[in-house]
Protein backbone atom coordinates (compact mmCIF):
# COMPACT_ATOMS: atom_id res chain seq x y z
CA UNK A 1 0.00 0.00 0.00
CA UNK A 2 1.40 3.41 -0.99
CA UNK A 3 0.26 6.53 0.83
CA UNK A 4 1.32 10.16 0.85
CA UNK A 5 2.23 12.10 3.99
CA UNK A 6 2.76 15.87 3.85
CA UNK A 7 5.80 16.82 5.91
CA UNK A 8 3.97 19.47 7.90
CA UNK A 9 1.42 16.86 8.95
CA UNK A 10 4.09 14.65 10.45
CA UNK A 11 4.35 16.13 13.98
CA UNK A 12 0.60 15.87 14.52
CA UNK A 13 0.51 12.35 13.20
CA UNK A 14 3.26 11.24 15.56
CA UNK A 15 1.47 12.82 18.51
CA UNK A 16 -1.74 11.03 17.54
CA UNK A 17 0.06 7.70 17.82
CA UNK A 18 0.79 8.40 21.47
CA UNK A 19 -2.77 7.45 22.36
CA UNK A 20 -1.88 3.82 21.85
CA UNK A 21 1.89 3.70 21.60
CA UNK A 22 5.10 5.02 23.02
CA UNK A 23 6.81 6.67 20.07
CA UNK A 24 10.59 6.53 19.83
CA UNK A 25 12.37 8.70 17.32
CA UNK A 26 15.83 10.22 16.88
CA UNK A 27 16.24 13.37 18.95
CA UNK A 28 19.16 15.67 19.59
CA UNK A 29 21.38 14.64 22.48
CA UNK A 30 24.60 16.61 22.85
CA UNK A 31 26.17 16.60 19.36
CA UNK A 32 24.37 13.54 18.05
CA UNK A 33 20.96 11.94 17.77
CA UNK A 34 19.53 9.23 19.95
CA UNK A 35 16.23 7.30 19.99
CA UNK A 36 14.17 8.82 22.78
CA UNK A 37 10.45 8.86 23.61
CA UNK A 38 8.36 11.52 21.94
CA UNK A 39 7.07 14.05 24.47
CA UNK A 40 4.42 16.75 24.16
CA UNK A 41 6.89 19.40 23.08
CA UNK A 42 9.47 17.36 21.18
CA UNK A 43 10.68 19.00 18.01
CA UNK A 44 10.48 16.40 15.29
CA UNK A 45 13.79 16.35 13.44
CA UNK A 46 14.07 13.87 10.67
CA UNK A 47 16.66 15.70 8.68
CA UNK A 48 19.61 14.23 10.53
CA UNK A 49 21.82 13.12 7.69
CA UNK A 50 22.36 9.63 8.99
CA UNK A 51 21.66 7.16 11.75
CA UNK A 52 21.77 7.66 15.51
CA UNK A 53 24.94 7.24 17.56
CA UNK A 54 23.58 4.28 19.51
CA UNK A 55 21.75 1.82 17.26
CA UNK A 56 18.06 1.10 17.95
CA UNK A 57 19.02 -2.45 18.94
CA UNK A 58 19.12 -0.79 22.39
CA UNK A 59 15.34 -0.65 22.28
CA UNK A 60 15.17 -4.44 22.02
CA UNK A 61 18.29 -5.42 23.93
CA UNK A 62 18.79 -2.70 26.54
CA UNK A 63 22.33 -1.93 27.68
CA UNK A 64 21.40 -3.36 31.02
CA UNK A 65 18.37 -5.56 31.66
CA UNK A 66 17.18 -7.60 34.61
CA UNK A 67 16.81 -11.30 33.84
CA UNK A 68 15.99 -12.82 37.19
CA UNK A 69 15.14 -11.53 40.64
CA UNK A 70 16.35 -13.24 43.78
CA UNK A 71 13.78 -13.82 46.50
CA UNK A 72 14.66 -13.54 50.15
CA UNK A 73 14.57 -17.28 50.66
CA UNK A 74 17.27 -17.99 48.08
CA UNK A 75 14.78 -18.57 45.28
CA UNK A 76 14.39 -17.07 41.85
CA UNK A 77 11.66 -15.46 39.84
CA UNK A 78 11.40 -14.19 36.27
CA UNK A 79 12.05 -10.50 35.85
CA UNK A 80 9.04 -8.38 34.92
CA UNK A 81 8.54 -8.24 31.21
CA UNK A 82 5.89 -5.57 30.82
CA UNK A 83 6.33 -3.75 27.55
CA UNK A 84 4.20 -0.88 26.30
CA UNK A 85 3.38 -1.09 22.61
CA UNK A 86 5.69 1.23 20.74
CA UNK A 87 6.54 2.65 17.38
CA UNK A 88 10.19 3.09 16.43
CA UNK A 89 10.04 5.94 13.97
CA UNK A 90 12.71 6.91 11.42
CA UNK A 91 14.76 3.78 11.93
CA UNK A 92 17.25 3.45 9.08
CA UNK A 93 17.25 0.37 6.82
CA UNK A 94 20.69 -0.72 8.05
CA UNK A 95 19.46 -0.75 11.63
CA UNK A 96 16.16 -2.46 10.78
CA UNK A 97 17.91 -5.19 8.84
CA UNK A 98 20.19 -5.66 11.84
CA UNK A 99 17.24 -6.16 14.17
CA UNK A 100 15.95 -8.81 11.81
CA UNK A 101 19.36 -10.51 11.88
CA UNK A 102 19.30 -10.49 15.67
CA UNK A 103 15.87 -12.13 15.56
CA UNK A 104 17.52 -15.25 14.15
CA UNK A 105 19.41 -15.60 17.41
CA UNK A 106 16.99 -14.31 20.03
CA UNK A 107 13.81 -15.83 18.57
CA UNK A 108 15.43 -19.15 17.76
CA UNK A 109 12.90 -21.81 18.73
CA UNK A 110 14.67 -23.97 21.28
CA UNK A 111 15.32 -21.16 23.74
CA UNK A 112 13.32 -18.20 22.50
CA UNK A 113 14.28 -15.16 24.53
CA UNK A 114 11.12 -13.92 26.25
CA UNK A 115 12.45 -10.40 26.89
CA UNK A 116 13.41 -9.83 23.27
CA UNK A 117 10.28 -11.49 21.95
CA UNK A 118 7.93 -9.34 23.97
CA UNK A 119 9.58 -6.14 22.76
CA UNK A 120 9.67 -7.28 19.14
CA UNK A 121 6.04 -8.30 19.11
CA UNK A 122 4.97 -4.98 20.62
CA UNK A 123 7.03 -2.85 18.21
CA UNK A 124 6.11 -1.35 14.87
CA UNK A 125 9.12 -0.21 12.85
CA UNK A 126 8.60 2.79 10.59
CA UNK A 127 11.74 3.22 8.54
CA UNK A 128 13.17 6.30 6.91
CA UNK A 129 15.30 5.56 3.89
CA UNK A 130 18.51 7.45 3.20
CA UNK A 131 18.16 9.63 0.12
CA UNK A 132 21.64 11.03 0.78
CA UNK A 133 23.56 7.97 1.90
CA UNK A 134 26.48 8.68 4.22
CA UNK A 135 30.09 8.32 3.09
CA UNK A 136 30.99 5.87 5.83
CA UNK A 137 28.00 3.58 5.27
CA UNK A 138 28.38 0.59 3.00
CA UNK A 139 24.99 -1.08 3.17
CA UNK A 140 24.92 -1.96 -0.53
CA UNK A 141 28.21 -3.82 -0.21
CA UNK A 142 26.77 -6.24 2.36
CA UNK A 143 23.45 -7.03 0.75
CA UNK A 144 21.43 -4.10 2.03
CA UNK A 145 20.64 -0.68 0.71
CA UNK A 146 19.55 2.82 1.64
CA UNK A 147 15.90 1.88 1.04
CA UNK A 148 16.08 -1.78 1.97
CA UNK A 149 12.88 -3.13 3.49
CA UNK A 150 14.17 -5.95 5.71
CA UNK A 151 12.89 -5.63 9.27
CA UNK A 152 10.50 -2.79 8.47
CA UNK A 153 6.74 -2.57 8.83
CA UNK A 154 6.64 0.72 6.91
CA UNK A 155 9.16 2.56 4.73
CA UNK A 156 9.19 6.33 4.27
CA UNK A 157 10.87 7.98 1.30
CA UNK A 158 11.50 11.72 1.37
CA UNK A 159 10.27 13.10 -1.98
CA UNK A 160 10.53 16.82 -1.19
CA UNK A 161 7.50 18.34 0.52
CA UNK A 162 6.16 14.98 1.53
CA UNK A 163 6.98 11.35 2.17
CA UNK A 164 5.91 8.34 0.19
CA UNK A 165 4.65 5.90 2.82
CA UNK A 166 5.01 2.25 1.77
CA UNK A 167 3.10 0.08 4.22
CA UNK A 168 4.79 -3.32 4.17
CA UNK A 169 3.08 -5.34 6.90
CA UNK A 170 -0.24 -5.48 8.73
CA UNK A 171 1.36 -3.99 11.80
CA UNK A 172 1.99 -0.77 9.90
CA UNK A 173 -1.46 -0.40 8.39
CA UNK A 174 -3.43 1.27 11.11
CA UNK A 175 -0.83 3.91 11.94
CA UNK A 176 -1.64 5.66 8.68
CA UNK A 177 -5.39 5.30 8.25
CA UNK A 178 -5.81 9.08 7.91
CA UNK A 179 -3.59 9.30 4.84
CA UNK A 180 -4.51 9.46 1.19
CA UNK A 181 -3.19 7.00 -1.36
CA UNK A 182 -0.14 8.23 -3.26
CA UNK A 183 -0.52 9.04 -6.93
CA UNK A 184 1.61 7.48 -9.62
CA UNK A 185 3.94 10.44 -10.00
CA UNK A 186 4.78 10.41 -6.29
CA UNK A 187 5.48 6.71 -6.44
CA UNK A 188 7.63 7.14 -9.51
CA UNK A 189 9.56 9.99 -7.92
CA UNK A 190 10.18 7.90 -4.84
CA UNK A 191 11.40 4.93 -6.82
CA UNK A 192 13.74 7.15 -8.77
CA UNK A 193 15.17 8.62 -5.55
CA UNK A 194 15.57 5.14 -4.10
CA UNK A 195 17.38 3.84 -7.16
CA UNK A 196 19.65 6.90 -7.38
CA UNK A 197 20.63 6.57 -3.76
CA UNK A 198 21.42 2.90 -4.26
CA UNK A 199 23.47 3.55 -7.39
CA UNK A 200 25.37 6.39 -5.77
CA UNK A 201 26.89 4.11 -3.17
CA UNK A 202 30.30 2.73 -3.95
CA UNK A 203 31.38 -0.84 -3.39
CA UNK A 204 33.46 -0.68 -0.23
CA UNK A 205 35.05 -4.13 -0.63
CA UNK A 206 34.37 -7.25 -2.68
CA UNK A 207 32.51 -9.99 -0.87
CA UNK A 208 33.24 -12.78 -3.34
CA UNK A 209 35.25 -15.52 -1.59
CA UNK A 210 35.77 -13.17 1.37
CA UNK A 211 34.46 -15.84 3.73
CA UNK A 212 36.90 -18.46 2.44
CA UNK A 213 39.80 -16.03 2.62
CA UNK A 214 39.06 -15.14 6.23
CA UNK A 215 38.47 -18.67 7.44
CA UNK A 216 41.35 -20.27 5.57
CA UNK A 217 43.92 -17.84 6.97
CA UNK A 218 43.36 -18.36 10.67
CA UNK A 219 47.06 -18.16 11.56
CA UNK A 220 48.03 -15.48 9.06
CA UNK A 221 50.03 -12.38 9.98
CA UNK A 222 47.11 -10.52 8.40
CA UNK A 223 45.41 -10.52 11.79
CA UNK A 224 48.42 -8.92 13.50
CA UNK A 225 48.47 -6.30 10.78
CA UNK A 226 44.83 -5.23 11.08
CA UNK A 227 44.78 -5.22 14.89
CA UNK A 228 48.02 -3.37 15.56
CA UNK A 229 46.57 -0.04 16.64
CA UNK A 230 43.33 -1.42 18.06
CA UNK A 231 42.88 -0.13 21.58
CA UNK A 232 40.70 -3.01 22.71
CA UNK A 233 37.77 -0.82 23.76
CA UNK A 234 34.18 -1.72 23.02
CA UNK A 235 33.15 1.18 20.80
CA UNK A 236 32.82 -0.83 17.58
CA UNK A 237 30.84 -3.63 19.21
CA UNK A 238 28.58 -1.41 21.30
CA UNK A 239 27.73 0.91 18.43
CA UNK A 240 27.25 -2.03 16.07
CA UNK A 241 23.59 -2.85 15.34
CA UNK A 242 24.30 -6.54 14.78
CA UNK A 243 26.46 -7.14 17.85
CA UNK A 244 24.47 -8.80 20.62
CA UNK A 245 26.91 -10.41 23.03
CA UNK A 246 26.00 -9.93 26.66
CA UNK A 247 27.44 -10.66 30.07
CA UNK A 248 25.37 -11.99 32.96
CA UNK A 249 26.18 -10.59 36.37
CA UNK A 250 24.64 -10.84 39.82
CA UNK A 251 24.02 -7.43 41.35
CA UNK A 252 23.80 -8.49 44.94
CA UNK A 253 22.66 -5.21 46.43
CA UNK A 254 19.73 -5.03 44.06
CA UNK A 255 19.12 -8.77 44.40
CA UNK A 256 19.03 -9.20 40.66
CA UNK A 257 20.73 -11.14 37.94
CA UNK A 258 21.19 -8.79 35.01
CA UNK A 259 22.53 -8.92 31.51
CA UNK A 260 24.79 -6.13 30.25
CA UNK A 261 26.19 -5.47 26.81
CA UNK A 262 29.54 -7.18 26.50
CA UNK A 263 32.22 -7.17 23.84
CA UNK A 264 34.41 -9.87 22.35
CA UNK A 265 37.07 -7.16 22.17
CA UNK A 266 37.44 -7.13 25.96
CA UNK A 267 40.15 -9.30 27.53
CA UNK A 268 37.79 -10.78 30.11
CA UNK A 269 35.24 -11.89 27.54
CA UNK A 270 36.63 -15.40 27.21
CA UNK A 271 38.91 -15.46 30.23
CA UNK A 272 38.48 -18.74 32.11
CA UNK A 273 38.64 -19.24 35.89
CA UNK A 274 41.84 -21.25 35.49
CA UNK A 275 43.48 -18.16 34.01
CA UNK A 276 43.59 -19.59 30.50
CA UNK A 277 42.37 -17.21 27.81
CA UNK A 278 41.65 -18.66 24.34
CA UNK A 279 41.92 -15.13 22.95
CA UNK A 280 44.76 -13.62 24.92
CA UNK A 281 45.50 -10.57 22.76
CA UNK A 282 43.89 -8.07 20.45
CA UNK A 283 45.03 -10.19 17.52
CA UNK A 284 42.78 -13.14 18.40
CA UNK A 285 39.93 -10.90 19.47
CA UNK A 286 40.00 -8.91 16.22
CA UNK A 287 40.02 -12.21 14.37
CA UNK A 288 36.95 -13.33 16.31
CA UNK A 289 35.08 -10.10 15.59
CA UNK A 290 35.74 -10.04 11.87
CA UNK A 291 35.19 -13.78 11.54
CA UNK A 292 31.91 -13.64 13.43
CA UNK A 293 30.53 -10.97 11.11
CA UNK A 294 31.87 -12.23 7.80
CA UNK A 295 32.21 -16.01 8.30
CA UNK A 296 30.22 -17.46 11.20
CA UNK A 297 27.00 -15.47 10.61
CA UNK A 298 27.07 -16.78 7.06
CA UNK A 299 27.56 -20.35 8.33
CA UNK A 300 24.64 -19.93 10.71
CA UNK A 301 21.99 -18.04 8.70
CA UNK A 302 23.53 -17.53 5.26
CA UNK A 303 23.73 -13.77 5.66
CA UNK A 304 26.63 -11.42 6.34
CA UNK A 305 26.41 -10.33 9.97
CA UNK A 306 27.05 -6.69 9.15
CA UNK A 307 24.59 -4.22 7.64
CA UNK A 308 27.09 -1.52 6.71
CA UNK A 309 25.82 1.20 9.04
CA UNK A 310 29.28 2.76 9.25
CA UNK A 311 29.29 3.54 12.96
CA UNK A 312 32.45 1.55 13.68
CA UNK A 313 34.18 3.44 10.91
CA UNK A 314 33.09 6.84 12.22
CA UNK A 315 33.71 6.33 15.92
CA UNK A 316 36.67 4.03 16.29
CA UNK A 317 38.99 6.15 18.46
CA UNK A 318 42.00 5.16 16.38
CA UNK A 319 40.31 5.42 13.01
CA UNK A 320 40.34 1.72 12.16
CA UNK A 321 38.15 1.09 9.12
CA UNK A 322 36.57 -2.32 8.72
CA UNK A 323 36.18 -1.71 4.98
CA UNK A 324 39.95 -1.32 4.62
CA UNK A 325 40.53 -4.43 6.72
CA UNK A 326 38.30 -6.43 4.39
CA UNK A 327 39.91 -5.01 1.26
CA UNK A 328 43.18 -6.19 2.74
CA UNK A 329 41.62 -9.60 3.46
CA UNK A 330 40.76 -9.89 -0.22
CA UNK A 331 44.49 -10.15 -0.92
CA UNK A 332 44.80 -13.33 1.17
CA UNK A 333 45.32 -16.69 -0.55
CA UNK A 334 42.49 -19.21 -0.60
CA UNK A 335 41.23 -22.40 -2.16
CA UNK A 336 37.76 -22.76 -3.56
CA UNK A 337 35.94 -25.34 -1.50
CA UNK A 338 34.88 -28.42 -3.45
CA UNK A 339 32.53 -29.66 -0.76
CA UNK A 340 28.85 -29.59 -1.66
Amino acid at each position, binding site marked *: MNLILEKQALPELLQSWRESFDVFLPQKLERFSHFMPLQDDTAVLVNEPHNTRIPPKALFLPMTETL*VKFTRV*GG*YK*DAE*NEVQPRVVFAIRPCDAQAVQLLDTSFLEEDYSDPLWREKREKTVTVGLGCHEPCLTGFCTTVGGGPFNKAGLDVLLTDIGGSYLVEVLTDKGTWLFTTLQPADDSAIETAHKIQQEAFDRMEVAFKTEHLKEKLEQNFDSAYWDSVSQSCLGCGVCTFLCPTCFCFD*IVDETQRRERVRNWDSCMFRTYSLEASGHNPRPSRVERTRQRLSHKF*VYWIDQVNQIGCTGCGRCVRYCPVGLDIRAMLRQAQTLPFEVSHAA
Partner: protein
Amino acid sequence: MQHNGHSPYTPIPMHVLRAYYESTDRSLKTLELSFDRAADCQAFFETFNPGQFCLLSVAGKGESALGIANAAWEGDFVRFTIQKMGSVTTALHALKAGDAIGIRGPLGNGFPLEDWKGKNLVIIGGGCAFSTLYALTKHVHHQDYRDDYGKLTLLYGTRTSGLCMYKHDIAAWHEDEDMEIHQAIDVPEDNWLHHVGYVPDVVRQVAPSPANTVAVVCGPPIMTKFTLPALVELGFSPENIFTSLEKRMKCGIGKCGRCNLGPKYICKDGPVFSLAELNALPADL
Protein backbone atom coordinates in the same frame (compact mmCIF):
# COMPACT_ATOMS: atom_id res chain seq x y z
CA MET B 1 15.74 -27.76 28.20
CA GLN B 2 12.26 -27.60 29.58
CA HIS B 3 11.54 -24.52 31.53
CA ASN B 4 7.83 -25.01 32.16
CA GLY B 5 6.75 -21.62 30.99
CA HIS B 6 9.47 -19.81 32.90
CA SER B 7 12.14 -17.72 31.35
CA PRO B 8 15.13 -19.79 30.20
CA TYR B 9 17.28 -17.49 32.33
CA THR B 10 15.47 -18.34 35.57
CA PRO B 11 17.02 -21.21 37.53
CA ILE B 12 14.95 -24.21 38.58
CA PRO B 13 14.73 -24.24 42.39
CA MET B 14 16.56 -27.15 44.02
CA HIS B 15 17.91 -28.15 47.37
CA VAL B 16 21.09 -29.95 48.32
CA LEU B 17 20.38 -33.56 49.31
CA ARG B 18 23.91 -34.67 49.94
CA ALA B 19 27.27 -32.94 49.84
CA TYR B 20 30.60 -34.74 50.23
CA TYR B 21 34.21 -34.43 49.15
CA GLU B 22 35.44 -36.66 46.36
CA SER B 23 39.13 -35.98 46.63
CA THR B 24 41.38 -36.28 49.63
CA ASP B 25 42.63 -32.73 49.13
CA ARG B 26 39.04 -31.41 49.23
CA SER B 27 39.41 -29.64 45.89
CA LEU B 28 36.59 -31.75 44.45
CA LYS B 29 33.16 -31.86 46.04
CA THR B 30 30.05 -33.69 44.93
CA LEU B 31 26.61 -32.18 45.36
CA GLU B 32 23.46 -34.22 44.83
CA LEU B 33 20.45 -32.00 44.31
CA SER B 34 16.71 -32.64 44.56
CA PHE B 35 13.96 -30.75 42.76
CA ASP B 36 11.62 -28.50 44.73
CA ARG B 37 8.89 -29.01 42.16
CA ALA B 38 7.92 -32.45 40.80
CA ALA B 39 7.04 -30.99 37.41
CA ASP B 40 10.61 -29.74 37.01
CA CYS B 41 11.97 -33.17 37.90
CA GLN B 42 9.78 -34.84 35.34
CA ALA B 43 10.64 -32.35 32.62
CA PHE B 44 14.34 -32.68 33.40
CA PHE B 45 14.51 -36.43 32.97
CA GLU B 46 12.36 -36.36 29.86
CA THR B 47 15.16 -34.74 27.92
CA PHE B 48 18.20 -35.66 29.98
CA ASN B 49 21.02 -37.41 28.15
CA PRO B 50 24.50 -38.25 29.53
CA GLY B 51 27.05 -35.67 28.39
CA GLN B 52 24.79 -32.74 29.08
CA PHE B 53 25.52 -30.07 31.63
CA CYS B 54 23.70 -27.62 33.85
CA LEU B 55 24.38 -24.09 34.97
CA LEU B 56 24.43 -24.14 38.74
CA SER B 57 23.27 -20.91 40.29
CA VAL B 58 24.21 -19.33 43.58
CA ALA B 59 22.13 -16.20 44.00
CA GLY B 60 24.46 -13.25 44.36
CA LYS B 61 27.52 -15.06 43.04
CA GLY B 62 26.58 -16.20 39.59
CA GLU B 63 26.42 -19.43 37.66
CA SER B 64 28.87 -22.16 36.81
CA ALA B 65 28.63 -24.73 34.03
CA LEU B 66 29.04 -28.29 35.33
CA GLY B 67 28.67 -31.68 33.74
CA ILE B 68 25.84 -33.89 34.99
CA ALA B 69 27.41 -36.84 36.81
CA ASN B 70 24.51 -39.26 37.25
CA ALA B 71 22.45 -41.56 35.08
CA ALA B 72 18.65 -41.20 35.04
CA TRP B 73 18.05 -44.60 36.59
CA GLU B 74 19.89 -43.61 39.77
CA GLY B 75 16.92 -41.63 41.08
CA ASP B 76 15.20 -38.25 41.19
CA PHE B 77 18.27 -36.22 41.84
CA VAL B 78 21.05 -34.60 39.88
CA ARG B 79 24.71 -35.02 40.75
CA PHE B 80 27.57 -32.66 40.05
CA THR B 81 31.22 -32.84 41.04
CA ILE B 82 32.74 -29.41 41.38
CA GLN B 83 36.35 -28.32 41.34
CA LYS B 84 36.97 -25.29 43.52
CA MET B 85 38.37 -22.69 41.15
CA GLY B 86 36.69 -19.27 41.16
CA SER B 87 34.05 -17.29 43.00
CA VAL B 88 31.02 -19.40 42.08
CA THR B 89 32.65 -22.79 42.59
CA THR B 90 33.97 -21.60 45.95
CA ALA B 91 30.40 -20.70 46.93
CA LEU B 92 29.20 -24.10 45.70
CA HIS B 93 31.80 -25.81 47.85
CA ALA B 94 30.40 -24.02 50.88
CA LEU B 95 26.96 -25.57 50.40
CA LYS B 96 25.71 -28.34 52.64
CA ALA B 97 22.67 -30.61 52.80
CA GLY B 98 19.47 -28.57 53.02
CA ASP B 99 20.82 -25.47 51.30
CA ALA B 100 18.91 -23.87 48.43
CA ILE B 101 20.44 -23.80 44.98
CA GLY B 102 19.26 -23.29 41.42
CA ILE B 103 20.06 -25.07 38.19
CA ARG B 104 19.33 -24.40 34.54
CA GLY B 105 19.34 -27.50 32.44
CA PRO B 106 19.80 -30.06 31.09
CA LEU B 107 21.73 -28.07 28.50
CA GLY B 108 23.79 -29.03 25.50
CA ASN B 109 23.65 -31.98 23.17
CA GLY B 110 25.05 -34.81 25.28
CA PHE B 111 26.59 -37.97 23.86
CA PRO B 112 24.98 -39.30 20.66
CA LEU B 113 23.98 -42.58 22.27
CA GLU B 114 21.63 -43.61 19.45
CA ASP B 115 24.54 -43.55 17.00
CA TRP B 116 26.70 -45.54 19.41
CA LYS B 117 24.31 -48.45 19.76
CA GLY B 118 25.88 -51.72 18.73
CA LYS B 119 29.40 -50.35 19.05
CA ASN B 120 32.20 -50.96 21.50
CA LEU B 121 32.90 -47.98 23.71
CA VAL B 122 36.30 -46.78 24.85
CA ILE B 123 35.74 -44.18 27.55
CA ILE B 124 38.81 -42.08 28.39
CA GLY B 125 38.68 -39.57 31.22
CA GLY B 126 41.14 -37.32 32.99
CA GLY B 127 40.83 -35.47 36.27
CA CYS B 128 37.56 -33.82 37.19
CA ALA B 129 36.34 -33.87 33.58
CA PHE B 130 35.48 -37.49 34.21
CA SER B 131 32.09 -36.55 35.68
CA THR B 132 30.03 -36.78 32.48
CA LEU B 133 31.89 -39.94 31.48
CA TYR B 134 30.88 -41.34 34.85
CA ALA B 135 27.26 -40.53 33.96
CA LEU B 136 27.78 -42.24 30.61
CA THR B 137 29.35 -45.33 32.17
CA LYS B 138 26.65 -45.61 34.80
CA HIS B 139 24.07 -45.44 32.03
CA VAL B 140 25.52 -47.92 29.53
CA HIS B 141 26.67 -50.31 32.22
CA HIS B 142 23.14 -50.63 33.62
CA GLN B 143 21.39 -53.90 32.84
CA ASP B 144 18.54 -52.08 31.00
CA TYR B 145 20.92 -50.57 28.47
CA ARG B 146 23.97 -52.85 28.54
CA ASP B 147 22.94 -54.98 25.58
CA ASP B 148 22.68 -51.90 23.35
CA TYR B 149 26.44 -51.58 23.38
CA GLY B 150 29.43 -53.81 22.79
CA LYS B 151 32.61 -54.06 24.80
CA LEU B 152 33.14 -51.44 27.49
CA THR B 153 36.66 -50.16 28.12
CA LEU B 154 37.24 -47.45 30.66
CA LEU B 155 40.46 -45.52 31.06
CA TYR B 156 40.61 -42.98 33.89
CA GLY B 157 43.70 -41.00 34.84
CA THR B 158 44.23 -38.55 37.67
CA ARG B 159 47.29 -36.73 38.92
CA THR B 160 47.23 -38.67 42.20
CA SER B 161 45.14 -41.53 43.58
CA GLY B 162 43.56 -39.11 46.06
CA LEU B 163 42.07 -37.09 43.20
CA CYS B 164 40.23 -40.09 41.79
CA MET B 165 36.50 -39.45 41.88
CA TYR B 166 33.71 -41.94 42.55
CA LYS B 167 36.17 -44.29 44.25
CA HIS B 168 33.45 -46.69 45.35
CA ASP B 169 32.23 -47.40 41.83
CA ILE B 170 35.74 -47.41 40.39
CA ALA B 171 36.77 -50.07 42.90
CA ALA B 172 33.71 -52.14 42.02
CA TRP B 173 34.44 -51.83 38.31
CA HIS B 174 37.91 -53.20 38.83
CA GLU B 175 36.23 -56.38 40.02
CA ASP B 176 33.60 -56.36 37.26
CA GLU B 177 34.28 -58.84 34.47
CA ASP B 178 32.01 -56.97 32.08
CA MET B 179 34.21 -53.87 32.16
CA GLU B 180 37.83 -53.53 31.17
CA ILE B 181 39.06 -50.70 33.38
CA HIS B 182 42.47 -49.06 33.30
CA GLN B 183 43.28 -46.54 35.98
CA ALA B 184 46.33 -44.32 35.90
CA ILE B 185 48.13 -41.78 38.05
CA ASP B 186 50.86 -39.41 36.92
CA VAL B 187 53.63 -40.41 39.33
CA PRO B 188 54.26 -43.63 41.28
CA GLU B 189 52.67 -44.14 44.71
CA ASP B 190 53.11 -46.88 47.24
CA ASN B 191 50.57 -49.70 46.94
CA TRP B 192 49.39 -48.51 43.53
CA LEU B 193 48.34 -51.56 41.50
CA HIS B 194 47.48 -49.89 38.19
CA HIS B 195 49.09 -47.79 35.45
CA VAL B 196 51.52 -44.97 36.08
CA GLY B 197 51.75 -42.41 33.31
CA TYR B 198 49.90 -39.73 31.42
CA VAL B 199 46.64 -40.72 29.80
CA PRO B 200 47.82 -40.38 26.15
CA ASP B 201 50.69 -42.79 26.87
CA VAL B 202 48.42 -45.22 28.70
CA VAL B 203 46.05 -45.12 25.74
CA ARG B 204 48.91 -46.17 23.49
CA GLN B 205 49.87 -48.95 25.89
CA VAL B 206 46.34 -50.28 26.19
CA ALA B 207 45.96 -49.89 22.42
CA PRO B 208 42.18 -50.41 22.17
CA SER B 209 41.07 -51.73 18.80
CA PRO B 210 39.23 -49.24 16.59
CA ALA B 211 37.09 -51.95 14.97
CA ASN B 212 33.43 -51.00 15.40
CA THR B 213 34.48 -48.83 18.30
CA VAL B 214 33.74 -45.30 19.41
CA ALA B 215 36.19 -43.48 21.67
CA VAL B 216 35.12 -40.60 23.89
CA VAL B 217 37.67 -38.41 25.65
CA CYS B 218 37.01 -35.90 28.42
CA GLY B 219 39.86 -34.28 30.26
CA PRO B 220 41.83 -31.15 30.82
CA PRO B 221 42.66 -29.45 27.49
CA ILE B 222 46.28 -30.58 27.58
CA MET B 223 45.28 -34.21 27.99
CA THR B 224 42.71 -34.04 25.21
CA LYS B 225 45.20 -32.33 22.93
CA PHE B 226 47.57 -35.31 23.14
CA THR B 227 45.03 -38.10 23.47
CA LEU B 228 43.11 -37.38 20.28
CA PRO B 229 46.17 -37.88 18.04
CA ALA B 230 47.05 -41.05 19.96
CA LEU B 231 43.65 -42.47 19.03
CA VAL B 232 44.12 -41.43 15.42
CA GLU B 233 47.45 -43.27 15.46
CA LEU B 234 45.68 -46.37 16.73
CA GLY B 235 43.41 -46.25 13.71
CA PHE B 236 40.31 -44.51 15.06
CA SER B 237 38.66 -42.35 12.43
CA PRO B 238 37.78 -38.75 13.37
CA GLU B 239 34.06 -39.56 13.06
CA ASN B 240 34.45 -42.12 15.84
CA ILE B 241 36.40 -40.02 18.29
CA PHE B 242 34.37 -37.73 20.55
CA THR B 243 35.23 -35.15 23.16
CA SER B 244 33.46 -32.64 25.36
CA LEU B 245 34.59 -29.02 25.26
CA GLU B 246 34.52 -26.19 27.73
CA LYS B 247 34.73 -22.45 27.43
CA ARG B 248 33.67 -19.52 29.56
CA MET B 249 29.86 -19.61 29.55
CA LYS B 250 27.15 -17.27 30.67
CA CYS B 251 23.73 -17.87 29.15
CA GLY B 252 24.17 -21.56 28.31
CA ILE B 253 21.48 -21.37 25.63
CA GLY B 254 23.29 -19.94 22.63
CA LYS B 255 22.28 -16.32 23.10
CA CYS B 256 25.12 -14.40 24.69
CA GLY B 257 27.66 -15.30 22.03
CA ARG B 258 30.71 -15.95 24.13
CA CYS B 259 31.25 -19.74 24.05
CA ASN B 260 31.46 -19.91 20.28
CA LEU B 261 33.89 -22.05 18.36
CA GLY B 262 33.47 -20.66 14.89
CA PRO B 263 29.76 -20.80 14.08
CA LYS B 264 29.02 -23.38 16.78
CA TYR B 265 28.13 -22.66 20.39
CA ILE B 266 29.66 -25.07 22.85
CA CYS B 267 26.62 -24.68 25.10
CA LYS B 268 24.07 -25.50 22.42
CA ASP B 269 25.69 -27.31 19.49
CA GLY B 270 28.04 -29.04 21.95
CA PRO B 271 29.60 -29.58 24.38
CA VAL B 272 30.08 -32.97 22.73
CA PHE B 273 31.79 -32.84 19.34
CA SER B 274 33.40 -35.48 17.18
CA LEU B 275 36.97 -34.95 16.05
CA ALA B 276 35.65 -34.73 12.50
CA GLU B 277 33.47 -31.78 13.52
CA LEU B 278 36.33 -30.19 15.46
CA ASN B 279 38.67 -30.40 12.49
CA ALA B 280 36.25 -28.16 10.61
CA LEU B 281 36.19 -25.55 13.37
CA PRO B 282 38.77 -22.87 14.16
CA ALA B 283 41.40 -23.63 16.81
CA ASP B 284 39.91 -21.05 19.13
CA LEU B 285 40.13 -22.87 22.49
